[in-house]
């Protein structure tokens, strides 16, 4: 089955942080997705010049007929500044997907579930966390989330709500560059000690998903291997400075 381009309508735009924005795309012929998958976006100018980019889906599959994507504005980028500055509700965008079948977690896979994110790498993991909540899954799950500063924590309020729901989902934040007064979370880059502390309550047979910059994902994946987790239980998605 070919993945055809379809015309999505932007129905909502929401600021997540000063540099990160979410877009709700209503899709006429969306066959549904699995948490962790992404879509391709194609932008075309009047003269036919066009560019494509991939964006992870942030929303859970329980929401049908539309998906959210969350886009970090990359200074000097070709696509993300356009999406941030020019796209408003009512605009239409060409989209195809869903794409990717490995970096996927569904409630039926079970847990315990470890999610590790750096910056906007949280987006596909958020689809998993939202799905877990909507599906009524109670598998123990922890998100270790590295952000630069308190204003740059994507989905902060929603993550607080998910962690307060009492269904076995916990969040540990680390702020690597700037911490507010009274900060009680981690305050350094993710390292093996931090991983050990976050993984410990989950036990041994976890499923791990890590998404973020290459250095973070390398640290996490190598660290989990050293902690004894089999390589096929560790799924990674990385971004360098690619998704501009």
């Amino acid at each position, binding site marked *: *089955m*070919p*993945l*055809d*381009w*379809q*015309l999505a309508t932007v129905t909502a735009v929401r600021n997540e942080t000063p540099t990160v924005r979410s877009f709700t795309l209503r899709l006429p012929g969306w066959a549904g997705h699995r948490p962790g998958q992404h879509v*391709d976006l*194609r*932008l*075309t*100018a*009047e003269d*036919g*010049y*066009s*560019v*494509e*980019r*991939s964006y992870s889906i942030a929303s859970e599959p329980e929401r049908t007929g539309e998906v959210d994507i969350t886009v970090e504005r990359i200074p000097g980028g*070709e696509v993300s500044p*356009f999406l941030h500055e*020019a796209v408003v509700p009512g*605009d*239409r*965008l*060409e989209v195809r997907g869903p*794409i*990717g*079948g*490995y*970096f996927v977690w569904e409630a039926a896979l079970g847990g315990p579930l470890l999610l590790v994110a750096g910056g906007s790498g949280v987006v596909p993991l958020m689809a998993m966390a939202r799905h877990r909540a909507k599906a009524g899954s109670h598998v123990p799950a922890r998100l270790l989330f590295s952000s630069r500063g308190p204003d740059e924590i994507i989905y902060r309020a929603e993550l607080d709500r998910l962690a307060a729901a009492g269904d076995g989902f916990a969040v540990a934040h680390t702020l690597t560059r700037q911490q507010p007064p009274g900060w009680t979370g981690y305050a350094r880059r993710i390292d093996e000690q931090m991983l050990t502390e976050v993984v410990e309550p989950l036990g041994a047979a976890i499923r791990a998903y890590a998404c973020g910059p*290459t250095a973070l994902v*390398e640290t996490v*994946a*190598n660290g*989990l*291997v050293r902690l004894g987790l089999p*390589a*096929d239980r*560790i*799924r*990674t*998605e*990385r*971004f*360098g*400075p*690619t*998704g*501009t």
Partner: protein
Amino acid sequence: MGERFVTRGFVGRRDDGAGGPLSGDERRRRTPPGQYLTTDFPVLSAGPTPRTPLDRWSLQVEGLVANPVSWTWEQFLALPSRDWVVDISCVTKWTHLDMRWKGVSVDALLEGVDLDPTAAFIVAYSDGGYTTNLPLADVLNNQAFVAWEYDGKPLAPEHGGPARLVVPGRYFWKSAKWVRGLRLQANDEPGFWESLGYNNRGDQWTEERYSGD
């Protein structure tokens, strides 16, 4: 979609200077559809980076060959190698022009193994269990090589070191990182990404990104 859709307000950057000394025309000519140019070397992997010590590393050619072969690291480095300067396109949309590698052509690896006449496909397999499939015709005649150097330095583990297959004419997932062997087969056998929604052939010039493209 019949008539071409135009994205309201989109102009595009057109020329990001990422091609170095090349002219804009040449950069455009060498950029496959839907791709953008970068001078970075982004890392994309599905799992942890495998690390096999060189004294336990080997490269195999097996399957439909009369003389299967296994090289140690030292033997592999002693095979006839050359420099390769090639354009690489990743299905995640980046294209990097003039990437400089050192490695052994697949032709050289197949010399002396005595291919069975029914051999028509290869499966490249890697540390960590990754596989990718290619028609034999797509890797012969200097269309593919196994590289151990990038940009004058040993190939870094996150980029597929100690050695990776490089197939410049296909999206980069066909260039198996951490390659440990080539298996010659009569039948095509979809590899890792080819079984997970990505295109079986992966020609970047016809945008064969996903199944059905």
